[in-house]
C-alpha cells in the first residue's frame, strides 16, 4: 500500500470517529462508538493499524508518526465526549460487572516493627539531642580502670565483688582483668579522657549484672547516662535539664525532686523523681561529678563542674507500654514485637 493511501484512510477515520463521538447523545451510544473505533480487538483504529505492514519500509516512519497523531486525536475526542456526558470512566472499572463492596479489607502491608527498647531509646535520643546532648559510644567489654577506678570505685568497694559482675575468664590477658560493663558511666570516662571540657553527651547501651532473671530483673539491660561538664554547671542546671527531659518525654509539664543518695562517682548524689499525675515516680540516679573523677580524667575541679545522671531504659519502656515482665523483651516472640 502506498503511503498516500494509508494517510487517506487515517484522515477518514479521524473524521468519522470525531463525528461519532461528538454526536453521541448518551453514555450508551458513546460506549457503542468507543467499541466501534477504539475497541481492543475489532475497533476500526486497530483495523487501519494493520495496514502499516503494507506500507513500504522507507515510508514507514512517516506512516507511524501519522498513526500516532491520529490515535491521540481520536482518544482526545473520546475523552472530550466523555467529559461532555459527565461520565469519566475509571480505567480500572472496565469490564467490572459485580457490585463494588467497599467493606472488603484493604490489601495489607506487612511492615516490620522496631523493638520497644529501640523505640524508647530513639525517643530518648531525640529529646536529649534537642537539649544539646550528643550521643557517645563506648565498649561493652571494659577494663577495671574505666568500669571502677576512674569512677572512684576503689578495689575494696563492694561494687567490685566478683559475684556482682561478669568478669571475663581470660587466661594471661595482657589487657588485664576485663568485664562486661556494669554501667554506661564508663563512657563518661572515655569521652573525658579523649578531650577537654566542655562535654555534653548521652550514652545509651547494654549493661550487664548477674541478677537472676525474673519479672523485673534481667542480667542484661540498657541504660542511658547523661553528662555535662563545663564552667559554672550547677545542680540547678541538673534539675532544669531533668525537668525539660521529663516534660518532653511525658508531654506535659512536671516537677523534679531530689532525694539524697550515694554513688561513688557523684557528690552530691541524689535520686531524682518526677511528679506526674500527683505521684512521684523514680527517674534515676544523678549528681554532680565527683571532683576525684574529674581529676582522674585530667580535668581541674577548680575550673569546671559537671553533672551526670543515669536511668534504666527497660523500666521506662515497660512503664510506657505497660509491659509487666522484662523477660518478654528478650524472648522475641513476633506476636509481642508486633504490638509496638
Amino acid at each position, binding site marked *: 500500500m502506498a503511503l498516500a493511501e494509508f494517510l487517506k484512510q487515517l484522515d477518514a477515520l479521524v473524521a468519522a470517529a470525531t463525528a461519532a463521538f461528538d454526536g453521541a447523545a448518551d453514555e450508551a451510544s458513546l460506549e457503542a462508538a468507543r467499541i466501534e473505533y477504539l475497541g481492543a480487538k475489532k475497533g476500526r483504529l486497530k483495523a487501519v493499524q494493520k495496514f502499516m505492514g503494507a506500507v513500504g519500509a522507507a515510508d514507514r516512519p512517516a506512516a507511524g508518526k501519522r498513526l500516532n497523531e491520529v490515535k491521540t486525536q481520536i482518544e482526545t475526542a473520546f475523552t472530550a465526549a466523555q467529559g461532555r456526558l459527565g461520565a469519566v470512566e475509571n480505567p480500572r472499572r472496565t469490564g467490572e460487572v459485580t457490585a463494588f463492596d467497599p467493606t472488603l479489607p484493604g490489601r495489607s502491608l506487612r511492615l516490620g516493627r522496631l523493638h520497644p527498647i529501640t523505640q524508647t531509646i530513639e525517643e530518648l*535520643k531525640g529529646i536529649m539531642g534537642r537539649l544539646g546532648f550528643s550521643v557517645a559510644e563506648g565498649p561493652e567489654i571494659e577494663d577495671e580502670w574505666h568500669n571502677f577506678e576512674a569512677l572512684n570505685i576503689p578495689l575494696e568497694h563492694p561494687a567490685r565483688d*566478683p559475684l556482682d559482675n561478669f568478669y*571475663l575468664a581470660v587466661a594471661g590477658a595482657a589487657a588485664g582483668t576485663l568485664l562486661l560493663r556494669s554501667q554506661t558511666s564508663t563512657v563518661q570516662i572515655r569521652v573525658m579522657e579523649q578531650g577537654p571540657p566542655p562535654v555534653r553527651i548521652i550514652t545509651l547501651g547494654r549493661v550487664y549484672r*548477674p541478677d537472676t532473671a525474673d519479672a523485673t530483673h534481667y542480667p542484661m539491660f540498657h541504660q542511658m547516662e547523661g553528662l555535662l561538664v563545663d564552667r559554672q554547671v550547677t545542680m540547678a542546671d541538673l534539675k532544669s535539664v531533668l525537668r525539660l527531659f521529663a516534660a518532653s518525654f511525658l508531654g506535659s509539664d512536671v516537677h523534679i525532686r531530689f532525694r539524697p543518695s550515694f554513688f561513688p562517682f557523684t557528690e552530691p548524689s541524689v535520686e531524682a523523681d518526677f511528679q506526674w499525675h500527683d505521684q512521684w515516680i523514680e527517674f534515676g540516679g544523678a549528681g554532680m561529678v565527683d571532683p576525684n573523677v574529674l581529676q582522674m580524667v585530667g580535668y581541674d575541679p577548680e575550673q569546671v563542674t559537671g553533672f551526670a545522671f543515669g536511668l534504666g531504659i527497660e523500666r521506662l519502656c515497660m512503664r510506657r507500654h505497660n509491659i509487666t515482665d522484662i523477660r518478654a523483651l*528478650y524472648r522475641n*516472640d513476633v506476636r509481642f514485637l508486633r504490638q509496638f
Partner: protein
Amino acid sequence: MIVSWNWLKDYVALDMDPAELTERLAMAGLNHESTERVGDDLAIDLEVTSNRPDCLGHIGVAREIAVLWKQPLRVPDPNPAASGPDVAQLTRVSITCPALCYRYTARVIRGVKIGPSPAWLADRLRSVGIAVINNVVDVSNYVMLECGQPLHVFDLQRLRGPEIIVREALPGEQFPAIDHRVYTLEPGMCVIADARDPVALGGVMGGVDSEISEATTDLLIEAAEFSPLSIRTTARKLALHSPASYRFERGMDPLGVDWASRRCCQLIGELAGGQLAPGVLDVGAAPASRPAITLRLSQLPRVLGITVPAAEVARILQALGTDRVTGDQATIAVIPPSWRRDLTREIDLVEEVARIYGYDQIPEDVGVPMVPCHRTDEDRVLEKVRQTLTAAGFDEAVTTSVVPRPWCDAFSPWSDAAPLVASTPMLKGADTLRKSLIPSLLEARRVNESVGNETIELFESARVYLPRPSDLPQEQRTLGVTSGGDFRVLKGVVETLLETLHVSVPLTVSPTALTLLDPNRQARLELGGRLLGYLGEVDAAGLKQFGLRCPATVLELNLEVLGQAADLIPQQQALSDFPAIVRDLNLVVDESVRWEDLATTIRTTVGPLLESLQFQEVYRDKKKDGADKKRLLFSITLRSAERTLTNEEADAARDEVVHACGQTHRAVLLG
C-alpha cells in the same frame, strides 16, 4: 534499718506526725520503706545508704532528726561503777592480724545473774524485730541498735586461758557457730580464739562453746573494729550474714567502740547485776585524729546553684557533730565527727549542707545554654538500615550478648579466635560472648515456631565480640537478619540496603564454605574488596541443631563496612525528559553461565544508553533446550539524555546484546 518511734524519743523530741517525720527524713537521705504498728510503738523501716553506717543505730537517726527539726540531741554518757581486781588481772587480749582486726577492747563483769529482760527492753527489741533471748544478750543487741557498734559477750569461764587471741583463721579450721552449724574457715578470715580454739568468727558470729547460758556468771564484753573488706568476704564466702557483719562491712565509729562497751556494761549492771572490773583491755591502733576540712562558702553556689546563708551553714555543720576550727565571712573549717568517716573533703560538706538545707531549695527552671548537637554517621546509617528492614517486613529482635558455647561454635564467620568467656554464666548454660548474631536469631526462630508463628522475619543490630590479643576485644557493630524466604529474598535485602544507602562501590559475591549453611546456597559478600558479610540458607543439620522445623535463611553484615561505603547526602542527578524504550530478552545459556557475568557483557555492550537492566526470571525446559541449559529472562531499558530513541535503535541494541552474549557466553536468543 528498723527504728522504733518510742525508742527514738529517748534521744530527741518527736513533736511531729510520723508521716511528716518519714517524709522529711527521706528528703534528707533516709528513704522510707514502711511503717508498721507494733503494740503501742511504730516500727519505721528506713533505707540507709552504704556511706552512712552512723544511721544503723537509733542515735544516728535521732541526730538527723535533731538537725532537721533544730532540736537538741540527748546522748547518754555511760560511766558504770567498777570495783575489785583490774581487768588486766582477769584476762589477756592480743591481736596477731592487725590487717583484719584494727582494734579490740574487752571488759569483764563477774557475778551476773542471767534472766529474762525487763518488759521495756523486750518491747523495744520486738518493735524492731529482734529476738528476745536473755538480759545479757538482749543488752548487747540493744546497744548495737542504739549506737550501731556490734558487741559480743563471752562466758568468761568457758574461755580457756582465760584469754583472747585475735588471729587469722588456719586453712580448713573448723568453727562451731552459735547457729549450731560448723563452718570451715580459711586464711583471710578473722577468728577470735581463746588459748586453744576459735570461740567466735570476728565481727560475723559467736561460737557455740562460749555462748551465754543460764549458768553463766562471768562475762567478757567485746567491742572491736574489724576490717570491712575482710568481714564482707568472710560473710559472703560462708553465706553468713548477721546484723553485726552488716555494720562492720560499712565501717565503725572508732570513738564509738569504747562508748558502746561502757554502755553495755552499764546496762548489764542495771539489769543483771555483777561487778565490773576496773579498766579496759584496749589493743590495736588508737583512733587517729582527723584533719580539718575547709569549706569555702563560694563553693555552695558554684556547685548547688543557690546561696545558703553563712549562719545556716554553720548551724548545720555544728548540729551534724563537726567541730568548728576556724571560720570567717568566706570560709569555715571543721573537724568531722568520728562517726562520719564519709566526710573527708570540701565537696562532702557541700553535700551535707545541701541535703539538710533542702534540695527543694534548688530551682528547676534555670536557663541552660543552647549548644549545637550533631548526630553521628553511625546513627544515621543505622536509622536507614532499620527503616529499610522494617519496610521490608522484618521485625526487630533484641537477644542477649552471652550465649551457650555450642552456638558460638556453630557459626563464627568473623573470627577463628577462641571466644571470650564470662566467669559466671549470664543465663543457664550461657557463658560465651557471641561472635555472631545468627545463632541467637535462630533461637528466636525456634521460640516463634514453638508458639506457632508462621511469619518469622527478624533482624537485630548489635555488637559481636571478636577477641584480639593484648587489647580489648573488637566490638564489631553487626546486623543479623533471618528470613523464612530463600537466598534471593535476603540478597534482595542486601541490594536494597546498598541502594538506600547510596553505596556506589559494587557488591561482589564469592563462594564460601561456612558450617551451618547449605554448601551450595551460601555466599561471601564484599564491597570494593572489603568483607561486608555472609548470606546463606541454613542446611538440614543446622536446622536440626537449632530445633527448627521450617527452612531458614540468614544474613550477617558488618555495619561498619556498610556505613563507611554509604553516601548519606546523595546528590541530585539530571533526569532525561525523553521517553525510555524497553526490550525483553530470553536467552538460553549453559547452567554454568553466571548472571553477573552475563550482566557485565550486557552493560558493556549497550553502553551509556542502558538505563537499567532488570533480571526477570530463570527457568528450565529440558525437553526443548536440552540438559544443563537454563533460560534467563530479562529486560533492558534504554534512554538517552539528548533525544528520543527510535525503535530501530532499541532493536539494534537488543541485537547487539544477543550477539555479544552469543559470542561470550554461547547464549542463544529464544523466540
